[in-house]
């Protein structure tokens, strides 16, 4: 298992003021896995994401990624190491074009310096050209290349969700964290999106951690599932194990009915 291990969180927790938002989270992902993270509203799923990506600093515990300790690092450093994410409430660069949104994430793959850009040295032109080509390739995968000059804020909702994933992918991650990628989509769109996620996972050899509310979806595609409730992990296992776990059923009681 050690050879295959990509990320591991040990006893991770965070306090806001005196309130323990998340505590004692132990989880791991092996290379190539597609893992789900579920739980009722306010269970601490997004907070966990924020800790894994450096947006919040865990107040306890340790996170190791690819053999390196990553808690204490800033988000951009974590991203450079190979963790990239999307946001629950879409955070695109609204007034930038679709293409530029992807190019921003492609930033760290380019090498040309500020000086070369200011003096328009050859390395600037080759670097920018490469970024343009790579970014366009990502857009093509997501069927967004036709919108490349459109401002991100003018895209339809479903396309914005896709663009967020394309942008996250352009940062060249090993681990992709998707925070409710299908939120607000209709069943057809959700279905297409899941096929797309399966495709990029294979194509780029990604490991994916997915927060999702749609239980059918999570049960359908994830290999293992972690369940959070009230800031604590209450269960983990295969979809079948989770489905029959009494703790999970209890946590979701009432919510399932709505679903």
């Amino acid at each position, binding site marked *: 298992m050690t050879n295959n291990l990509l990320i591991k969180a040990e006893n991770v927790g965070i306090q806001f003021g005196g309130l323990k938002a998340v505590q004692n989270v132990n989880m791991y992902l092996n290379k190539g896995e597609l893992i789900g993270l579920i739980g009722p509203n306010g269970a601490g799923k997004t907070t966990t994401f924020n800790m894994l990506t450096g947006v919040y600093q865990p107040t306890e515990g340790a996170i190791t990624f690819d053999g390196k300790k990553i808690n204490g690092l800033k988000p951009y450093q974590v991203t450079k190491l190979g963790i990239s994410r999307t946001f629950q409430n879409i955070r695109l*660069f609204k007034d930038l074009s679709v293409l530029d949104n992807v190019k921003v994430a492609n930033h760290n793959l380019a090498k040309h310096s500020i000086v070369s850009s200011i003096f328009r040295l050859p390395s600037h032109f080759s670097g920018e050209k490469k970024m343009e080509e790579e970014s366009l390739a990502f857009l093509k995968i997501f069927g967004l290349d036709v919108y490349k000059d459109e401002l991100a804020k003018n895209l339809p909702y479903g396309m914005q969700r896709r663009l967020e994933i394309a942008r996250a992918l352009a940062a060249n991650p090993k681990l992709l964290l998707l925070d409710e990628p299908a939120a607000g989509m209709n069943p057809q769109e959700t279905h297409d999106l899941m096929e797309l996620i399966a495709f990029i996972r294979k194509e780029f050899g990604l490991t994916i951690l997915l927060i999702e509310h749609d239980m059918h979806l999570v049960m359908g595609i994830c290999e293992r599932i972690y369940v959070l409730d009230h800031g604590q992990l209450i269960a983990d296992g295969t979809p079948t194990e989770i489905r029959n776990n009494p703790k999970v059923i209890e946590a979701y009681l009432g919510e399932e009915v709505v679903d």
Partner: protein
Amino acid sequence: MKKSKSFWGYCLLALVIYAVVQLSISMQLLDLYYQNMLITMCINIMLAVSLHIVIGITGQFSIGHAGFLAVGAYLSAVATMKLGLPFPIAILIGAVVAALAGLLVGIPTLRLKGDYLAIATLGFAEIIRIVFLNVDYVGGAAGMVVNHMSTWTYAFIGVVITILVISNFTNSRHGRGCIAIREDEIAADAMGINTTYYKVIAFAIGSFFAGLAGAIYAHNFYIIQPTTFGFLKSFDILIYVVLGGLGSLSGSVLAAILLTVVSTYLANFPETRMIIYSLVLIIVMLYRPTGLMGTKEITDLFKIGKKGGSKA
């Protein structure tokens, strides 16, 4: 390749403007009053563009830009008047020291956001001014006598370099990183942009060109005094950027040109000028908060037929 064609077009345009004015000056078609207005215009354009990279591109709300103008003005004046260095070297000294001051101010303050950053930059600008007020070597409150050395040529070259460097920076992966910070700092960070680094870099570049403008400013009048570089001066520069459109380089240039002309004609009625300025500002903020140009560039207006507002 289309890009490089338009680049040479701009070069030609700049050359023509320069040649026409220079010719008019040497044929004595332009008297000192208008020459001075043109040089002031150039200084204001440099200031506007140098603040544009901080506020318009990177979205960091600095209202203490006059502090860096003061650093450039005083340091270059010391270089020429006290050390007897040639003017071009003095300009460089003024700009470099202003950039260093920008780093000094920017590194601690740029992790603040919005209102807090604004008030901190204002505080730093006041401290810089009070320091010059208390240093007898540069004349204290009475100010420092400076020889007139700025010419149309120096001023125009300054403008060209300022615009070229800042637009080249903006249209690169680095500039895109800065715009991403303006749009959404948390997302930019999550996409691998070192936000602190780019905020500080943009701030230092802005300060560098404010210092450059300061050097030319100092050698255009016969005296520089600490009172010149107070909050009102910072505010003047802020108006160019805001009125022109936050995020639009050509907008801030246009606003600087327009307002220089207006304030030159209103120079004898300073109260009226300030009343008009403040009214315009309030009305623009209430009815068109994006400024005249929004984030668009003047070149975008010529391609209305095409889609989108890409600035590439």
